[in-house]
């Protein structure tokens, strides 16, 4: 499988650094942001980002607001919500707004890796479908 491009967003810097290193060690292409605004800028710049691991509770802009923006502006990017205070409401709310899944801190690395891969696969399937649809469109127009 092609290496997955992941963006980690969390205001807890030690957590962010360690998690980035661990994911990188598991052959993920990683990027990190300590806030929602920074994350959005990074996604804008780097169109290869496939999955965003997004902390729910952040000081500048909370995860749910960031999720809404990401889903609106980058609908193909999959988002996994990561929260230190996971509740059914915040999870459901996130799912309602198009999050791929949610995980609660401290999370199991294997579980996280599994979720990220699933999200990436989903994203790639979408990409393929879009690509196929465009190819079909081009082929049809040529015929």
């Amino acid at each position, binding site marked *: 499988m092609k290496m997955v491009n992941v963006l980690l967003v969390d205001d807890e810097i030690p957590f962010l650094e360690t*998690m980035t290193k*661990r994911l990188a060690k598991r052959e993920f292409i990683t990027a990190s942001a300590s806030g929602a605004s920074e994350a959005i800028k990074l996604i804008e710049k780097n169109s290869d980002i496939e999955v965003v691991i997004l902390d729910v509770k952040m000081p500048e802009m909370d995860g749910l607001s960031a999720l809404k923006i990401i889903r609106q502006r980058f609908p193909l990017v999959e988002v996994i919500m990561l929260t*230190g205070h996971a509740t059914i409401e915040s999870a459901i709310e996130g799912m309602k707004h198009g999050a791929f899944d949610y995980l609660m801190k401290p999370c199991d690395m294997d579980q996280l890796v599994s979720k990220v891969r699933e999200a990436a696969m989903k994203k790639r399937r979408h990409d393929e479908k879009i690509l196929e649809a465009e190819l079909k469109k081009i082929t049809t127009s040529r015929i």
Partner: protein
Amino acid sequence: MNQPRRLKEPYYKSLISKMIFIFIAVSFAPLFIVSGTILNQFSISYKEKSDAHLGELVLKHRQNIDGFLMEKLNNIRFMAKFFSIEELNKKGVLRNNLDALKTEYGSVFEDLGLINEQGIQTTYAGPFKLENARYSDSEWFIKAISNDYFISDVFLGLRGTPHFIITVRLKSDGKPWILRATINFAAFNSLVENLRIGKTGFAFILNNMGEFQSKPVFEIDHEKINSFYKLIQEGRKTKEGLFFSEMADDSGRENLYVASLIKNGDWILIYQQDKSDAFADLTHAKKMAIFIILLGGIVIIITAFFLSKWMVTRIALADREKELMNQQVIETGKLASLGELAAGIAHEINNPVAIMVEEAGWVRDIMEDEKFSNKENKDEIERALTQIKTQGKRCREITQKLLSFARKTDTSKEDVRINELIKDVIGFCAQRAKFSNVVIVSKLQENLPVMRLSHTEIQQVLLNLMSNALDSLEKRGGNITLSSALEDNEVVISVEDDGPGIPRSNLGRIFDPFFTTKPVGKGTGLGLSICYGIVKEMGGEITVRSVIDAGTTFHVRLPCTKNN
């Protein structure tokens, strides 16, 4: 504490006493005021009627007596006018007149006599030998000779029997003569004797000197006689000339007196009656009224006692319920405070724990690339890292439960389709069930009513029940059946597992907060307590049925109210 023992508390004892006092005071006050007023008015009215009746009677007898005396006087005056002295001096004329009077009035007239200026009875017709009897020294003669007519007091005279005389003064050749008639005392006395009312009422006549002019039916203390005149002076006088007064006799009995002057004020007619006899009916009526008031009073006291006790029992019961409610409120407040505290702690702890776990994970990642010369040290480090991971996971579970307990759920009601909700919950739990080798089956009744509930809350209830069922099947796998049904206007949601079951000794406590049978670190004991609170708040009921080694079923019954 049971109610009888509770009522012995000083507060309730005092309350009972106060209520009894208030009941009695409130009931007795109008009873006494109304009864007293009516009785007083009745007494006044009765006495007025009684006085009026007595007055009427005495007045009538006064007229009778005065009429009797005047009639007899007029008879003699007529005789004096009609006959000359010469004719009257003839014995036959007086005899004929006496006979005529006796024929007319019976034995009222006893005799007739003509008395000259010297007081010698010159002519006499009657049963006694009183011819030439000398009256010049008699008191009555002195008065009779100086008045045109005269009625004497009752006296014994020469004949020695009580009588009184009526005289008319005549003149012949300038010399005065007295025509005299003797009135039979018995005939006169019968006029007074007839005045009888009740058992003790009778009348008598006194002259100015306090001498009896009639024979009293009952004996009268002579010493009292003078006081009758005082009574008349001090008593109540009516415009008809009647005097009303009261006086006690030697035995202490109160007597009622009605008096009237007769014979131009020379005599006094006195009616006497024992007050208790005069007002016997009034006394009887009073006794009856007092008896009824007493009877009513006893009924009021008994009612006040039992009613107060009953009411205070109810108050004590309400107080007890209030106390329990207050305790519940305090407990709830404590739990809420605890929850808020726990939420704060959970949130603050989760992030550092996550960092610790991740750092441990990172150490393990690095270790994979390192070659350890000492295998024991490597194993020890790995064991320590595994322990950090395990305990981190444990921390997460604790904080998750605490957050779940403390969080403020969305209680706003919305239309909830129970079957769809169950399908959602199954979806949420599917992954965990898959890992635990648990098969989730749903048996849903179609066409259930749409319920008006807090979606978040009922979802939490079902998720908690599912979580417990999954926990019970975690080790060995099994089946969970989620079903819905409509029974007796209630929607019943059942969560059934074929796990190990709950021991009977624990069944009664499973809804208590912080009660858990899970291993240390696995459960907080809050899940079912939260479920219980939510379902109760919805007006529903949550029950459990469990058989060891056969499984456990939770039933959530939600009423289909008007709102639903």
